[in-house]
């Protein structure tokens, strides 16, 4: 995946209950225009930290708490909890990958489990490493199908943010 560009638009899709919902975000100067189906909002982030986002929608400030567990994302707004899931994989678009990916630790933490061995063939979305950070277990999943080229950490190891955990090759 290439995030180096400076795109002005993104579409993120979520599964909410039985419904797949696409959220379209467009940057317009300081604000983000959000389109959900036919509803249009003006939004902006005020403050973001691990597990918590304070944001503005049409001038009103809200704080949401966010946590992820596997393919489920929990979002709480004023005490009400929503379970968002990744959209159905079959409907999702494939992303092109080339060469090798270095999977890195998203937060400083401790490796609780190494779930794959070098040489393993893995499916897209398959958990590779379980990392405990901020009392949360985070599963590092394969961004695409491929083969584990190298496992760079062991169970129990303490890692820094950004530290490489697994090298994943495109080739089967």
């Amino acid at each position: 995946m290439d995030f180096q560009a400076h795109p002005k638009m993104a579409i993120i899709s979520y599964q909410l209950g039985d419904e797949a919902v696409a959220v379209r975000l467009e940057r317009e100067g300081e604000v983000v225009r959000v389109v959900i189906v036919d509803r249009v909002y003006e939004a902006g982030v005020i403050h973001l930290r691990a597990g918590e986002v304070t944001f503005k929608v049409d001038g009103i400030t809200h704080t949401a708490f966010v946590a992820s567990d596997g393919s489920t994302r929990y979002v709480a707004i004023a005490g009400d909890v929503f379970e968002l899931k990744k959209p159905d994989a079959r409907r999702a678009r494939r992303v092109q990958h080339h060469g090798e990916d270095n999977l890195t630790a998203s937060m400083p933490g401790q490796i609780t489990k190494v779930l794959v061995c070098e040489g393993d063939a893995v499916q897209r979305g398959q958990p590779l490493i379980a990392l405990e950070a901020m009392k949360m277990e985070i599963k590092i999943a394969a961004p695409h199908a491929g083969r584990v080229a190298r496992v760079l950490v062991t169970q129990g190891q303490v890692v820094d943010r950004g530290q490489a955990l697994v090298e994943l090759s495109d080739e089967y």
Partner: protein
Amino acid sequence: MKTIDKLLIANRGEIAVRIMRACQELGIRTVAIYSEADAQALHVRVADEAIPIGSAAPQESYLRGDRIIAVAQSAGAQAIHPGFGFLSENADFADAVREAGLIFIGPSGGSIRRMGNKTRARAIMQLAGVPIVPGYEGGIDADFGEAAGTIGYPVLVKAAAGGGGKGMRIVHAPKDLYDAIESAQREAEKAFGDPTIFLEKYVEHAQHIEFQVFGDTHGTVVHLFERDCSTQRRHQKIIEETPAPLLDDELRQRMSEAAVTAAQAVAYHNAGTIEFIVDPQTREFYFLEMNTRLQVEHPITELITGLDLVKLQILVAVGEPLPFTQDQIAARGHAIECRVYAEDAANGFLPAVGPVLLAKFPTMPGVRVDAGLETGDEVSRHYDPMIAKIIAYGQDRVAAIRKMDAALANTTILGVTTNVRFLRDVLAHPVFQRGEITTNFIEREFAAFRPDVNDKSDLALIAAALTDIQLTPDLLTTHTLPGALRSRLPTTNSDPWLAGDGFRIGG
């Protein structure tokens, strides 16, 4: 006078933590016990010492009285607090603790025993002049049909040794009576080893109002006002409040006198609760049972009286007299407790288990939280799925309800399904707002409960999308983040959420 400098808490979860907090204030060191499932639990972390007691199953750990007493002795504790549930109403355990030379923070084994058997308790209450639900304890089956007719249907078939709804049947018509008696007997035999059953009039639209009583070992018994616990699901309380909306001073006076009489009839000392059912139409009240222990809902009594019931329990357990007379106890304002459970209210209140990814509790004036877990802890399938008690105080009932709703809006539990939305919907229901809850309210009004939160789903989607997009460097509004914070954000290619290809960049 005996003294305690170390106390063992024979319990887990929020009540163990709550007892430990009282001990910390009193300068008493605390010993936790824990099962294999609880090695990292909050009550283990809060205690000064923690000792493993057995495997996850309660029969092999929190119910092993023999091991618990041995652990208390080897740890050098002088006293055991049983909390509620588990061994708290086990008369043999209370006796064994005292025979081992330890202080049991609770009533005498004799008091527990006399109140534990329901037919015996009814007989004692009748003798003491406390009104009991019209009923029949007769010996041979042939009499039950006639007795039920005299009492009037519907009747309740109950197990003498019962509790928790086991061995209990509601019978609406004579033709169903004998089947109900037989199955209740079988269930009671299995659950309690005693098939004795009795009949009680079933008061269909009843309120459950209980009185907190407190006795010392010098013969003084006082009451600390009432609690309305009519909001129940599956015969278990979920919302409690005090004062009870139904009671006026006259009825409160009569019921409190009956409660004190009931406690005195079994020479009661320490904290106890006399449960009554009240018919709101006739305003008649009947003794239901006595709980010979601290109650889950004790905090609302603490908020309106300003007393600490656990500290009082310890005080009277070492032989001190109660530090006040009845006349010196005053109640002020209104308090409500909501029990936050890991359960699915839209699906038969099915318990939910698993790791709690985030537990965030309200901090605001007039709100107290007694929690059994924190972020990163687990709701275990082995034990009661209560996560926390949220307790709110207001100058009157309307203020307390508003406070509670605000407190629940600031209660965030992620990872397991909870009843927070359900509790808020119950609070908002007109019947609750009017203070006219009867014990069948939840099943009558909330049988088809579905959380209706669609008005907020777009906000949730926007929050998720903004969070995900912020994880992408240089995209959209990343520049609003302080530099130090931005550097701590996860990188895109390792975030499991973004790892899939549901995320598309274009434009």
